[in-house]
């Protein structure tokens, strides 16, 4: 069965520093991978996706993610964090044989001014 793991409940980063939010996945076939963000009192927003092609995908708000097949990871990154990036981030995976997306439990990102 497909699954996704976000090993960190919370990540703290100083403003201006690079940030990484970790995600690993398990699927039986080729994965579709996604990141979503949930700002306080807002719904989930789609950030970026990996379907095929370049391992480095770029998304909204300056975020990017690197697909690493050998490590089954899809970590979310940003070169320089902003205080406004503070939010809850969800990694998600879909097996190409299924219409369902499975979400991780989320990682709370705190950007410290």
């Amino acid at each position, binding site marked *: 069965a497909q699954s996704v793991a976000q090993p960190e409940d919370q990540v703290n980063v100083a403003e201006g520093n690079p940030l990484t939010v970790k995600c690993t996945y398990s699927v039986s076939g080729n994965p579709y991978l996604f990141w979503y963000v949930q700002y306080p009192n807002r*719904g*989930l927003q789609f950030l970026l996706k990996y379907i095929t092609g370049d391992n480095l995908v770029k998304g909204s708000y300056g975020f990017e993610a690197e697909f690493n097949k050998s490590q089954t990871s899809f970590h979310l990154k940003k070169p320089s964090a902003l205080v406004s990036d503070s939010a809850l981030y969800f990694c998600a995976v879909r097996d190409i044989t299924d219409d369902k*997306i499975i979400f991780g*439990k989320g990682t709370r990102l705190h950007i410290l001014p």
Partner: protein
Amino acid sequence: GAGVSQSPSNKVTEKGKDVELRCDPISGHTALYWYRQRLGQGLEFLIYFQGNSAPDKSGLPSDRFSAERTGESVSTLTIQRTQQEDSAVYLCASSLVGRVYEQYFGPGTRLTVT
């Protein structure tokens, strides 16, 4: 344009009562999804609609939970005889057919069962 809307935004109900949650998807989105998010937890898939049929109900946690969809528009999630463990945020999402990976989420309904 208008996004996914959900109502009510907050619902407090007594244990044993029935509740109905509503989702209005983005116009033209034939796929609609319901999720549950318990405090501190990830999203839990409940049900998926393609048009007004539900090919995947595997996530519904018990027979107290049911959902309907009218055509390719409004969906309602009904929870009968609510229990305290039903307390959560219920999120609805919609997408274009075949674009399951690009779901647009509503703001959610926070359900508290006392």
